[in-house]
């Protein structure tokens, strides 16, 4: 890590966050592979690392790497946006190490202790046992401290420096993001109440605050990578915030169809879910528009005297991932979300592999893509590269990961379809119905393909890691 081009401490810290995020991304894929193998060979690691544990690590690594990459992205863009060094960077660094240490401890407990007796001690120190937020209660408090320090850094810097639209949106969004976590930090005997608030964390994070975060990052990316017009981009960001929160907050209704909550959620859920894809489609128009306009301006400008038209893109691999984000968000969150969101059909698809298919493509398309894009932006900045080009490894990585995730999604969709038809519509969702669906030839075939596609995704990740580590020194880039 010699000749570092970063003068900003905030950006330095950002690279720490992004590096650890990439490591956790690898861990996520690894445990996902173990779980995928267990679908095909149920005896694999039985009694040592059961499916439940592999899956906990798979989905928690996912959430945590994304949170790390999000924090890293904010530390990265703050000096650019505000024009000053981030305030309280020492606290930021301290908290980084606390966060990393806490994660290591939690992972070790998940791996080695796994479950505990039915007591409060287990909830406090081993597992909270609630999907996505299994981290024990002590770690919850740690996360709150970490998040508050981060929000503090962001607010102090935003208020002292130049407060651009992007920074304003991030400030509002991140305080909601940190605050919502509190809704998942209590215990109740009432499973309906439990699930009601659990969705406040999961849905309002993933379908509201994270989406807005992505909007802000995409705005920053468009400005830095293709020199899009700030006023256009920022106005667009506000429209996007209005659309995303306007549809997403009450879109929560689609999780309240069957958990014991009243029937009026059917109507609310149906209406707002039907609207939820609109901002995603609009985001897509926006990227196309901005790129078309800036590229068009470049084509017409007089200093293009080299005979060929120069591309306006200053970081090809990052831009590729950003464009994939617009597509992936639309496909994963939009298409794959929409086709099982209405209550009439959700009655049959709720709790099947359809959800899993949607989850894989949506998390990848909406979040993983843009965060990997941010990693490339950091590599560019760190190595003082003016125009960063695609390498063979970067192209292979993006193709294999995207292809792999798409393949997994299609396989899981087919598996979900079998489940809906056999286990739900034909046999009425019992224990026997469940296993009849799981044993069907189409289902088992789909699970084989999911594993194959998972391996391809993982190989793609290995290439991505190699590229991120080495491309900075590659002489093909313009410096």
């Amino acid at each position: 890590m010699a000749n570092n081009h970063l003068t900003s401490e905030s950006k330095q810290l950002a690279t720490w966050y992004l590096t650890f995020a990439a490591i956790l991304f690898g861990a996520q894929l690894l445990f996902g592979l173990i779980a995928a193998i267990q679908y095909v060979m149920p005896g694999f690691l039985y009694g040592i690392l059961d499916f439940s544990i592999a899956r906990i690590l798979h989905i928690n690594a996912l959430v945590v790497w994304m949170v790390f990459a999000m924090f890293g992205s904010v530390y990265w863009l703050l000096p650019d946006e505000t024009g000053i060094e981030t305030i309280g960077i020492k606290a930021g660094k301290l908290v980084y190490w606390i966060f990393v240490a806490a994660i290591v401890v939690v992972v070790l407990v998940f791996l080695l202790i796994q479950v505990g007796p039915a007591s409060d001690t287990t909830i406090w120190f081993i597992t909270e046992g609630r999907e996505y937020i299994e981290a024990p209660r002590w770690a919850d408090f740690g996360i709150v401290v970490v998040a508050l320090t981060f929000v503090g850094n962001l607010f102090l810097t935003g208020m002292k420096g130049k407060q651009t639209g992007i920074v304003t949106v991030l400030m509002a969004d991140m305080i909601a993001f940190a605050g919502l976590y509190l809704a998942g930090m209590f215990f109740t005997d009432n499973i309906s109440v439990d699930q009601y608030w659990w969705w406040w964390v999961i849905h309002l994070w993933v379908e509201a605050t994270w989406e807005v975060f992505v909007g802000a990052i995409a705005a920053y990316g468009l400005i830095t990578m293709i020199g899009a017009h700030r006023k256009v981009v920022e106005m667009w960001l506000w429209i996007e915030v209005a659309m995303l929160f306007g549809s997403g907050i009450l879109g929560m209704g689609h999780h309240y169809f069957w958990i014991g909550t009243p029937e009026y959620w059917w109507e609310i859920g149906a209406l707002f879910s039907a609207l939820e894809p609109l901002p995603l489609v609009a985001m897509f128009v926006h990227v196309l528009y901005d790129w078309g306009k800036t590229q068009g301006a470049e084509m017409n400008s007089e200093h293009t005297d080299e005979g060929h038209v120069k591309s306006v893109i200053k970081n090809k691999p990052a831009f590729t991932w950003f464009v994939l984000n617009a597509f992936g968000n639309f496909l994963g969150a939009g298409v794959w979300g929409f086709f099982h969101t209405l209550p009439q059909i959700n009655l049959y698809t709720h709790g099947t592999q359809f959800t899993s298919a949607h989850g894989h493509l949506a998390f990848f398309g909406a979040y993983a893509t843009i965060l990997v894009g941010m990693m490339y932006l950091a590599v560019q900045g760190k190595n003082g590269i003016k125009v960063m080009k695609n390498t063979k490894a970067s192209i292979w990585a993006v193709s294999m990961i995207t292809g792999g995730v798409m393949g997994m999604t299609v396989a899981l969709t087919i598996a979900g379809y079998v489940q809906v038809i056999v286990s739900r519509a034909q046999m009425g969702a019992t224990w026997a119905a469940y296993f009849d669906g799981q044993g069907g030839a189409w289902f088992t075939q789909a699970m084989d393909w999911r594993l194959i596609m998972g391996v391809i995704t993982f190989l793609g990740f290995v290439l991505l890691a190699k590229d991120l580590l080495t491309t900075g020194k590659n002489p093909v880039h313009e410096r």
Partner: protein
Amino acid sequence: MANKSVWNDNRFWRRSATWVTGFASILLIWLTFDTSAQISMGTNEDLQNGVTKRVPGPTVINYKITYEMSAKRGHEVPVIGGNDGKGNSLFQEKEKFFGRDDWSEKEAREMLHLGKLGSQAKNCMDCHTLLGNGAYYAPDLTKAWLDPAWGPNGTMQAITNKPTKEEAMAEFLQHPELYATHARMMPNLGITKEEAIGLVAFLKHMSSIDTNGFPRNFGKMKGAINGK
């Protein structure tokens, strides 16, 4: 400024975003108050007075629970203590749970508490789904209590050699590896007898929650022909 209008004014959109977000949040909070009241857990008194709650009190374990069509609502609903013929609960017919049908509110609440804690301490949700949420590696547990496999004609009572549904379930939970029915086996999670009883109470209670007809046609259909 030829093109200056409200539509390209940054402030207009910033305000719109704030108002839309605020309005949606307030609506959500208001609905949360309404929903919270409707899904609060009932009491023993409610059951005795025939008050239908979306989430009945823990002493519901003293009653017979079924899942039947309600003509009025157009889908199945949990029916507690007998059906009045129209899909409404009568709260009369009792059913023994581990040999008793007079569990006090305190006892029932303790069992349910232990069961709910156990469901989290053993990471149930990372293989099974509860109310349809969780992982898809093992069957949904929403109405597991009503599953015919555990009933008098089902296989599980015979395999575990227990005379009742609740005892068969408790036995299975303590030694799942001994009674596996499929290659995808539940691992031994070190569940004690007390915890197992609590978990069964938790499952019985969950089956009495009004889930707006999810899952559809539970346990009523037989004979899958396609798809295999």
